[in-house]
């Protein structure tokens, strides 16, 4: 669980994960928070990994996958620390992996469930990205920026060795496809942000869109190794 200044919500999220399944190892990656995020997470019984300074969402999430790889996890679930995801839905996200139908499962806010309605400009951006990524991965995807995901061993080891930087969720989906791993979306609910508005402004989203599209475009021309299992 990547977290940056989420002291108000992180305790509740950890408690909800515990309620969903007490067996889960809860790892919080504190990405240089200036509030008590790390302390609150530790008080609530999570294993806290504190980054010495803010490395950005991509680096923080990858730290989690490195931890998962080093500790030999079979599956890793990524949840945002701001309580927008409902930990009760973790089993739903895990199901395709347990059944062996997917390497990466993404919880989508736009597959019918939930009543999340973003502002019009953001919706346009989300639609455009979904369209572009759908073409690139040759299957229909609806929510490219969702941070509610589950990975199996293959996806964990891929993300541990290569994870995109700035706004990584979108690129990670394409990366998974390029490495010939299986990607599945499942519907999830989106809860409204409890504290504060999202920090994304119009200009920043425009810049973000440009950068992501550039990254996706350049990524097309990279050669990726095929996973070894395919050679057997």
């Amino acid at each position, binding site marked *: 669980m990547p977290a940056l200044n989420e002291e108000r919500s992180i305790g509740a999220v950890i408690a909800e994960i515990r309620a969903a399944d007490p067996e889960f190892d809860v790892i919080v990656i504190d990405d240089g928070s200036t509030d008590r995020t790390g302390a609150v997470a530790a008080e609530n019984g999570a294993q806290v990994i504190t980054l*010495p*300074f803010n490395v950005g969402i991509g680096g923080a999430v990858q730290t989690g996958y490195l931890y998962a790889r080093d500790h030999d996890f079979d599956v890793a679930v990524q949840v945002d620390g701001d309580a927008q995801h409902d930990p009760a839905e973790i089993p739903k996200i895990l199901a395709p992996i347990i059944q062996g139908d997917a390497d990466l499962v993404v919880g989508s806010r736009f597959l019918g469930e939930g009543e999340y309605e973003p502002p019009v400009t953001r919706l346009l951006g989300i639609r455009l990205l979904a369209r572009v990524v759908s073409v690139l991965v040759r299957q229909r995807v609806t929510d490219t920026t969702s941070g509610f995901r589950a990975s199996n061993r293959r996806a964990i080891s891929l993300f541990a060795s290569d994870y995109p*930087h*700035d706004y990584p969720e979108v690129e990670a989906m394409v990366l998974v496809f390029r490495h010939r791993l299986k990607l599945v979306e499942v519907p999830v609910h989106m809860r409204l942000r409890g504290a504060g508005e999202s920090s994304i402004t119009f200009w920043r989203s425009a*810049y973000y869109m*440009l*950068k992501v599209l*550039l*990254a996706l475009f*350049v990524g097309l*021309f*990279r050669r990726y190794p095929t996973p070894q299992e395919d050679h057997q």
Partner: protein
Amino acid sequence: MTPLRVSIVAAVAALLLLFVIFELIRSRRLQERYAMLWLLTGIVILILGLWRGLLSTIADAAGIAYPPSALFVLAAFFILLLLLHYSTVISTLADQNRILAQRLALLESRLGETQGNGESR
């Protein structure tokens, strides 16, 4: 108006620059974050090269009698901005480097303490 030959040379140079940037991103020697500025540079050069009346128009508007000077002014200003940007990036890196060194030193000292304790028991 820019002479045709100059226009062609500028456009080819700009395309070359754009290709080099692309290749640097592809081979992961340049992050997208820093590539955006360079792509902008390449595109501006390309536009100035292909749109042959633009430079004179800009020079006129800014009251510069000799259009090529406008180009130098623009280029110098942009390079100044780029350098300033790098100064801020270097400052951030220096800060992070200091924090890493401090964390490592504290970690080593704590490691030494625990090992010392273990031996004395």
